[in-house]
C-alpha cells in the first residue's frame, strides 16, 4: 500500500499552484491536509500524475470577520483551528459543535476545511453544516474567481461543481439571524467514526417568539449532504414540543438514506427522527437563551 509514482511540487505561490492546475487539469491534485487524498493514493484509488502541495500558501489559512456579521474561512484552515478559534465559536457555534465529530485530533491537526468540502464525502459532517448555514464557496482559477452557493456545490458522492482548473479557496458563512440557536448531533459507532446519521439544525425566533428561520441538514443521508423541507413547516410556529415532534416525524418520512453495512435504511431513518427532535429542541432552547 504505497502510492504510485507522481511528480510533487510544493507551490510557492497561489498563482503558481493555479497555473499548474490549469496546465494539467484532472491529472493534477491539490494536496492540503492529505487526510483523504493520501489514503486514496496509498490504496492507489487515486493516481494523480502531479501533486501540487499547497500547505505553504499561508494566504489560504485564515479565519476572519466578513461584512454584516459573516465569517470568512480560508480553505487551508485546519479543522483543529476551527475547533479552537474564538471568532468561529462566537459567530458560528454550529461549526464549533460539529468539528470535534470529524475523525480524531491527529486527523484534525492536518485536515483542512477546504479539503473536507472539496472531497465531498456525503457522510462527512462539515458539508451538512455548510448546507444548514446557507454558506457559499469561492473557487479560484488562473481565469479568475467565482462564488458557488452551497446548494450548487455538492453534485454527488466525491463530486463537486469545481472545474478541473479550479481551487476551492474560501468559504463564507453569512451571519446567523437574530435570536438564532443551532445544534449538531450525530450517532456513530465509535468516537471519530463516520456518523450513521447526523443532523445540523438552525432555528431563529422573532420578537414574538414565533419561528422566523429553520434549517435541517443531514450527513450520510444520500449522495450529497441533504436538507429537509420539513424545516419549513416550523416557520411561523412557536416551535413547541408538538411542533418539533411533527417536524421530526416529517423529516423521518421525507429522508431516503441509502442504508449501509452498519445501519439499515430503516435504522438510519429512525436515527434521523430521533436526532432531529433532539437537535431542534436544543436549537430552540439556545435561541431562547440568546435573547
Amino acid at each position: 500500500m504505497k502510492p504510485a509514482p507522481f511528480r510533487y511540487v510544493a507551490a510557492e505561490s497561489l498563482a503558481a499552484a493555479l497555473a499548474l492546475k490549469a496546465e494539467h487539469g484532472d491529472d493534477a491534485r491539490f494536496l492540503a491536509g492529505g487526510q483523504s487524498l493520501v489514503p486514496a493514493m496509498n490504496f492507489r484509488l487515486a493516481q494523480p500524475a502531479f501533486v501540487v502541495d499547497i500547505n505553504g500558501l499561508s494566504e489560504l489559512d485564515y479565519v476572519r470577520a466578513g461584512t454584516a456579521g459573516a465569517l470568512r474561512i480560508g480553505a487551508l484552515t485546519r479543522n483543529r483551528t476551527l475547533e479552537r478559534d474564538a471568532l468561529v465559536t462566537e459567530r458560528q457555534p454550529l461549526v464549533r459543535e460539529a468539528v470535534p465529530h470529524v475523525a480524531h485530533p491527529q486527523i484534525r491537526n492536518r485536515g483542512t476545511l477546504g479539503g473536507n468540502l472539496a472531497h465531498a464525502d456525503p457522510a462527512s459532517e462539515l458539508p451538512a453544516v455548510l448546507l444548514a448555514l446557507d454558506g457559499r464557496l469561492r473557487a479560484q482559477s488562473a481565469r479568475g474567481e467565482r462564488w458557488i452557493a452551497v446548494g450548487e456545490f455538492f453534485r454527488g458522492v466525491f463530486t463537486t461543481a469545481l472545474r478541473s482548473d479550479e481551487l476551492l479557496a474560501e468559504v463564507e458563512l453569512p451571519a446567523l439571524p437574530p435570536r438564532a440557536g443551532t445544534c449538531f448531533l450525530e450517532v456513530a459507532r465509535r468516537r471519530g467514526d463516520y456518523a450513521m446519521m447526523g443532523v445540523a439544525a438552525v432555528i431563529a425566533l422573532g420578537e414574538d417568539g414565533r419561528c422566523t428561520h429553520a434549517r435541517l441538514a443531514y450527513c450520510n443521508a444520500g449522495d450529497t449532504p441533504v436538507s429537509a423541507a420539513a424545516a419549513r413547516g416550523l416557520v411561523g410556529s412557536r416551535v413547541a414540543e408538538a411542533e418539533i415532534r411533527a417536524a421530526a416525524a416529517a423529516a423521518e418520512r421525507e429522508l431516503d438514506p441509502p442504508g449501509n453495512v452498519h445501519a439499515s435504511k430503516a435504522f438510519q431513518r429512525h436515527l434521523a427522527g430521533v436526532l432531529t427532535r433532539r437537535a431542534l429542541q436544543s436549537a430552540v432552547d439556545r435561541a431562547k437563551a440568546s435573547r
Partner: protein
Amino acid sequence: MTAERHAVTTTVNGTRYVRRVESRLLLTDFLRHDLGLTGTRVGCEHGVCGACTILYDGEPVRACLMFAAQANGHSVTTVEGLAPERGRLHPLQEAFREAHGLQCGYCTAGILMTMKAFLAERPSPSEDEVREALSGNLCRCTGYQHVVDAVLLAAAKLRGAPA
C-alpha cells in the same frame, strides 16, 4: 519513469537531517528506512490505526498520511525523542510500564506521542476525556483499560514532576 527526487532538510528529535527522497516516499518509511528510526510503527497506512502517530511541528499527526518531501523545513518528534536521555524514561513511558499499558507494544509508540500532546493540553483529564483522546489509536491486545490507567498515572506523574 525515473524516480523524481527532492531535497529534504528536516529536524527529527533535535537532529538535523539532509536527504534526497522520492516524491512518493511516505514520512513513515522515511523515518524508518532512511533515518533508521524504527520506533514509529506502520499499521494500516490509511490513517485509521494511529500506530504511526508522530509530532509534526509539535502536533500529533499520522506519519503515513504525509510524504517525506513535505517535512522539508519542519520538525518531527518520534518516540525515540521522548526519553530525556539514554537510560531514563519519560514519565509517560514509566507510567505505561508500571500500569501494564501495553502487551505486544505495536500501538504503543503512537499512543505515547498522541498522549504527550494531549496531556500538555489537558494536564488533569477525566477518564472519559482520556478515552476520547485515545479513540484515534487502535490497540488489539489490552482492551484499553490498562492504557487508560497508564495515561491517568502519567498525568499524575507529569503534574508532580518538577518544571
